[in-house]
């Protein structure tokens, strides 16, 4: 997933989850009443007069500010063009809250028809038997063709067993940001970012500033590791040529020597090379540390691009993550899912809405308002996007990196399996276990969890 999204997911987890459950319960009650009323109304009138299709649509907001307004604006735009469809767009909190709410509502017999949920939660939703593939509602050749118009990297987390369960919408990927002034000061070319792991270390060594007491005033690089360290770590693993989980989502490769090597590299940054702060590094404070000059480079989501653009008091650059065996990064963020329990009419309307909102004009509006990567090449071909990228070329880095990007770690019982990996990473980063010990234990635990899905 991306950026501030996760920070907030973590931040608000407790308060919002509770609030969301309450709201969920209330909404459930309300809509049960509504259903009862509509049902009665229907028995009195004839079926012919029932025309309007009602859709309930949950969406998470993870990057503050304009995202919620833009969703409302877009759904209103769709409804005025399609007066026979009514969309009730429900803000459902963070990603974590949204999936919790969708699962709870479905168990209570009142699922939404459509929801944006983490692409990595696909297997969980299949396992809970809550979602239905889009394929059944894409009948014409033209509609089937539409599926092929997304970046393949985004579709990896959206398809399994030959079916398409998710349509990419608010998607992101991590990139490297660097402080050009700090580079100049350290005698480095301010226009060139490190392209390899070794370069990242050697650049960082020059960039790390220590005072007479040995206290560091500026670190070379910052790869945050709080909350969900697996996401950025996955970037390192992919760069080293490893894949963390198979496409079926029932087997992980945490103890692959290449994965171990990637973790050793991450740990070495703070212990051996001493160019990154030791211990767990807070995700949420990372952009701030970058602005304050605490670090000369940082890894974080493209979702922070607008934030950095508006707040960095210096010139900054954005680059793809450095390579070891190859370039690489995970994707992240949310997909559209269709929920079971709706009528065919509703799902047809929902699919039509998804097609509309991912079309170039709407998608461009969304990308410019939020910083999410537009999921279809066609969007980048529009005049508005071309003009936007001209004035702000950094936005193109994330798009170009998609050629090297792989699916975000996603398995059955995803949260539990990633939780196991997160604990292992934290144990290695804080020096309680070696990379190899931590990862082979994690692999054993993941095997035990996933055995029943093979």
């Amino acid at each position, binding site marked *: 997933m991306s950026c501030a999204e996760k920070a907030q997911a973590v931040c608000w987890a*407790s308060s919002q989850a509770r609030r969301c459950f309450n709201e969920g319960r209330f909404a459930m009650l309300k809509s049960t009443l509504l259903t009862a009323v509509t049902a009665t109304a229907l028995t009195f009138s004839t079926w012919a007069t029932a025309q309007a299709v009602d859709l309930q649509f949950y969406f998470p907001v993870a990057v503050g500010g304009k995202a919620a307004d833009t969703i409302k604006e877009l759904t209103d735009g769709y409804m005025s063009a399609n007066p026979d469809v009514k969309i009730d767009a429900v803000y459902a909190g963070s990603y974590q809250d949204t999936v919790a709410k969708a699962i709870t509502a479905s168990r209570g017999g009142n699922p939404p028809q459509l929801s944006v949920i983490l692409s990595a939660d696909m297997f969980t939703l299949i396992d809970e038997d809550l979602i239905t593939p889009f394929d059944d509602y894409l009948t014409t050749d033209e509609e089937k063709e539409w599926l092929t118009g997304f970046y393949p990297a985004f579709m990896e987390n959206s398809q399994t067993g030959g079916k398409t369960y998710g349509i990419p919408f608010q998607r992101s990927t991590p990139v490297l940001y660097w402080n050009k002034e700090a580079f100049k000061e350290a005698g480095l070319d301010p226009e060139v970012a490190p392209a390899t792991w070794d370069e990242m270390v050697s650049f960082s060594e020059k960039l790390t500033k220590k005072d007479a007491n040995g206290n560091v005033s500026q670190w070379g690089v910052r790869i945050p*590791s709080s909350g969900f360290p697996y996401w950025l770590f996955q970037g390192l693993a992919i760069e080293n040529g490893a894949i963390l989980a198979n496409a079926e989502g029932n087997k992980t490769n945490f103890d692959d020597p290449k994965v171990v090597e990637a973790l050793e590299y991450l740990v070495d940054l703070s212990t051996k090379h001493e160019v990154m702060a030791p211990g767990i590094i807070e995700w949420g404070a990372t952009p701030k540390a970058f602005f304050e000059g605490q670090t000369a480079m940082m890894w974080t989501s493209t979702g922070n691009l607008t934030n950095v653009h508006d707040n960095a008091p210096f010139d900054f650059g954005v680059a793809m993550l450095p390579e070891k065996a190859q370039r690489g990064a995970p994707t992240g963020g949310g997909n559209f899912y269709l929920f079971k329990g709706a009528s065919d009419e509703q799902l047809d309307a929902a699919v039509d809405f998804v097609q509309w909102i991912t079309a170039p004009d709407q998608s461009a509006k969304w990308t410019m308002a939020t910083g999410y990567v537009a999921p279809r090449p066609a969007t980048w071909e529009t005049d508005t996007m071309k003009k936007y990228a001209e004035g702000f070329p950094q936005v193109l880095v994330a798009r170009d990196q998609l050629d090297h990007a792989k699916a975000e770690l996603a398995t059955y019982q995803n949260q539990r399996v990633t939780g196991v990996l997160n604990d292992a990473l934290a144990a290695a980063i804080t020096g309680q276990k070696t990379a190899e010990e931590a990862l082979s234990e994690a692999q054993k635990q993941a095997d035990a969890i996933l055995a029943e899905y093979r």
Partner: protein
Amino acid sequence: MKALKLKRDWIIGWLLLLPAMVFLFAFTHIPAITSLVSSFYSTPRGRRPAKFLGLDNYQRMFDDPVFWKVLGNNLWFALGTIPLSIALAIVMALWVNDKLPGRGFARMAFFTPTVLPLIAVANIWLFFYTPGFGLFDQLLGLFGLPATNWLGSPETALNSVIVVTVWKEAGFFMIFYLAALQAIPKTLIEAAQIEGANRWTIFWRITFPLLMPTTLFVSINAVINCFRLVDHIFILTDGGPDNASALLLFYIFETAFRFWESGYAATLTVALLVMLCLLAIGQFFFFDRKVHYK
């Protein structure tokens, strides 16, 4: 005639109890019983219904290293928060009970942490603890001390959480002590003063024993709170690094609503319930007899 009246009283009695009972049953007793029942079943998934496991979930709990770790953390958390916040509460209450200039302001200042929502408090402390440019590191930096990753190291994470909890709780307990102090008859203290007792003796021989019922009440609350207050953990550390700062309730929430393992979460809940029941019974039966000053 008499029997009829008795019957009517009986009905009215139950009717008066009914509203409270409905809520108690709906939100406390029935969920507790369903948790107990679910703890013997596997977690139902959409494609697989729950199946009866017997004691498998309990076996898993006893074999689960994370469970023992969070239990150990909780014990340390209790030892760290309960005595400290109670001692601090008594000191603060004694201080603001005296006539001193700006007493109202001091009382308000001590009570403010209680009024603030825990989530907001945690966000403020998150900034205090930030390595490098957080408040603590800026202060320590003035003395040339290096930056410390308070929340990001397993050694300091839980203690940092304890400090926030004590800060948050002490003001709340102070209010109870303040009320109790004002209920202590002045004559007792005056009599002691005439006898020539110093302040120290007065506190240990008169004030402290008379505060015992309050201490019992406050300590029960403190014990419950140390199992109940986990909101700030979500923000400060998210249980990390490697569960170093996770408490039992946090682990239950994580298991139930992040991992969606409601069966196992129910088992953990039963464990928590049993522990809380034992603690409450113990406190009432063993201490209640000793607290009243005679």
